[in-house]
């Protein structure tokens, strides 16, 4: 009886011990994963895993840049985690930064957020200007400045820029009796967004059924406002969106387009927009180089060769990102070296050739792979030349910490006009209310 009891107790103890060690070892292996200095086992030097925190589609992996770097540096592996939309990615990044945990070794920062990051989180990031292989002369001065603090610390290294052109459907243009050749199309609206609107009116009179001139009022606004130097903030960092002429004129153009039903009443990057693109429901869309791949993906075989690219009335810049290495990152030295390599002119040129992200390094514009780049899907348009020209004409924008919130609310206001819920003036008042509420003014 007694011995039975002791055995039972012994078994119980053993079980508890086994469970305990099991838990401990589970923790330990967790640490290995998180610590990312996973040993390769044979003592031939540890391998370092650099983690990338990204949003959207940058396409570094698809362009083979990770593989290339891993080949150059055999003791490094690169992993990425991607969140689709920046407005979901950004709050999480802030959360991680303020708690110093959960950060990737490299974090992407969208241009609409860079001012806020530089303003409020600069001490959480490494100074990348000190890193070997990074030299200021390689980069566009205005883009470099956006990523640095006033005392010259480089918080985010810039990866690309987004000079905008207009992508248009040749078949719809032909049906409406407009020229289809890209230089002639560029001339139609050269120099003034108002002309783009006028051509749109002509187009709409003779357009095929169900085809709108532009995809979305928000898209037209975004393209027009981006061609202005001053948008939501003045040079002193004051919010001036409600008196800024650039915003007023762009709102005027976009809301007129909406009221006259020149737009497809769509929202960019939604399912409806994708479907409209594959069915050819709109004739023009303002496109930065990184959007070409998206249009080709959604348009598919059906629209192959029907698109072309012309110059925008006045070119603006949309997008282009920055990459920072958080101080709290696991492998920040290795990560900084990798970032320096990844965004050097040669690699930016490669990324453009593969994925269409336009380099922020002027020396890349002279490289053959950029200069003579054409895009088969867009009727062999010389996109290298087109976007380089656009980039030259792009003004240096004054950016502010709340650019994204203001722009989102304005786009929302334009939806009200498109949906016929309010006229342009009423929608502007609603928009101003929403922006002031969001900014806590």
């Amino acid at each position: 009886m007694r011995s039975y009891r002791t055995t039972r107790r012994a078994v119980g103890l053993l079980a508890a011990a086994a469970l305990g060690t099991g838990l401990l070892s589970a923790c330990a292996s967790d640490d290995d994963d998180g610590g990312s200095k996973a040993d390769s086992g044979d003592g031939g030097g540890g391998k370092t895993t650099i983690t990338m925190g990204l949003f959207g589609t940058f396409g570094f992996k698809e362009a083979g840049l990770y593989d290339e770097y891993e080949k150059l540096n055999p003791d490094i592996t690169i992993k990425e985690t991607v969140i689709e939309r920046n407005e979901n990615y950004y709050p999480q990044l802030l959360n991680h930064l303020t708690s110093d945990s959960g950060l990737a070794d490299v974090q992407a920062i969208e241009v609409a957020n860079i001012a806020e990051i530089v303003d409020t989180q600069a001490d959480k990031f490494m100074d990348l200007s000190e890193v070997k292989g990074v030299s200021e002369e390689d980069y566009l001065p205005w883009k470099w400045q956006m990523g640095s603090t006033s005392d010259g610390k480089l918080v985010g290294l810039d990866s690309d820029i987004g000079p905008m052109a207009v992508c248009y459907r040749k078949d719809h243009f032909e049906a409406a009796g407009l020229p289809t050749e890209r230089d002639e199309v560029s001339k139609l609206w050269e120099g003034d967004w108002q002309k783009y609107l006028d051509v749109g009116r002509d187009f709409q009179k003779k357009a095929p059924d169900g085809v709108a001139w532009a995809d979305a009022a928000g898209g037209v606004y975004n393209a027009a406002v981006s061609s202005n130097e001053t948008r939501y903030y003045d040079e002193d960092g004051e919010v001036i969106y409600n008196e800024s002429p650039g915003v007023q004129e762009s709102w005027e153009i976009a809301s007129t387009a909406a009221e006259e039903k020149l737009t497809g009443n769509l929202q960019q990057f939604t399912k409806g927009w994708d479907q409209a693109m594959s069915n050819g429901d709109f004739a023009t869309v303002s496109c930065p180089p990184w959007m070409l791949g998206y249009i080709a993906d959604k348009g598919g075989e059906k629209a192959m060769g029907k698109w072309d690219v012309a110059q925008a009335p006045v070119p603006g810049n949309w997008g282009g990102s920055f990459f920072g290495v958080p101080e709290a990152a696991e492998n920040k030295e290795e990560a900084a070296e990798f970032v320096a390599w990844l965004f050097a002119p040669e690699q930016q040129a490669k990324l453009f050739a593969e994925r269409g992200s336009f380099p922020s390094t002027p020396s890349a514009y002279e490289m053959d792979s950029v200069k003579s780049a054409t895009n088969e899907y867009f009727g062999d348009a010389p996109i290298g030349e087109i976007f380089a020209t656009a980039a030259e004409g792009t003004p240096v924008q004054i950016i502010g910490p709340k650019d994204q919130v203001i722009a989102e609310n304005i786009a929302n206001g334009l939806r009200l006009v498109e949906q016929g819920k309010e006229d342009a003036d009423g929608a502007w008042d609603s928009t101003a209310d929403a922006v002031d509420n969001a900014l806590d003014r």
Partner: protein
Amino acid sequence: MTQTGSTAAAPPSAEGGAAPPARRAAARDPRKTWRSRRYRWDAKFSPYAFISPFFLFFVAFGLFPLLYTAWASLHRVELTAPTDMEWAGLHNYSRLLEDDFFWNSLWVTFVLAVISTVPQLLMALGLAHLLNYKMRASAFFRVAMLAPYATSVAAATLVFAMLYGRDYGIINWVLGQFGVGEIDWQAGDWTSRIAVASIVIWRWTGYNTLIYLAAMQAVPQDLYESASLDGASRWQQFLHVTIPSLRPTILFTVVVSTIGSVQLFGEPLLFDETKGATGGADHQFQTLGLYMYEQGWRNLHLGRAAAIAWVMFLILVVIGVINALIARRLRKS
């Protein structure tokens, strides 16, 4: 009342009478005292130890966040620097009074609560009544009822958002067959609310049906028998036997559904095509939960978001109190 009280109190006093000799005996032997004391402590404290995990978790993940949110709501706090708190007193609350977006979201929440809860509970009641009949494959129907409840909010909402699509959605296509023109479900004030409410109704009707069904099966059969002897029709039986017996259950489902409606978040968030927090361009389906999310995670004002969270909590407390009052009245009648 006094009568029963005194009889109930009698047994313990008899036990108490027996206790003194035992205590005297224990005093004689210190080892026995120790043991009996341990037994007493065991009986006294181990229940607390057993229930403590729940309360520890509740303190860590329920009470602390609640109090910290209250503290944060009295400050200006931004997500860019959550540790820099600047005292703001009740400003975050007082500004809500004149905040049109807040009143709009309160109104939307109320409307959605009504148009989702009322049809849902009525349908659940009817379905439960039908399922309560003897029929073939009743187990199958009961499981089928619960299937929507087992799907995730996100999956269900994304599918519904596609069904309600303006240009290529099935619902518009079907309506088109009957000559109804294209409806922009998301854009309209009421169309969008009806669409969101339909997602809620689809997910929760089955759940409430099963609750009603369980309650119906507990209604004594003799009540129905005597009712039918009195010549009551099926419908009369339903009205005068089933419904009164179900009153406490109905109250329970009303309260649970109302709480769910006040917290409505996933459906309106994902119904919007951009997954934005504004609940449509005109904020036409922005609920309190969405407005809180917009303030905290889009506009980065954590203090204001915390104040909205607390207002939501207070609304729920009020609903709870009303529920308690009604329940007490029901019990009395």
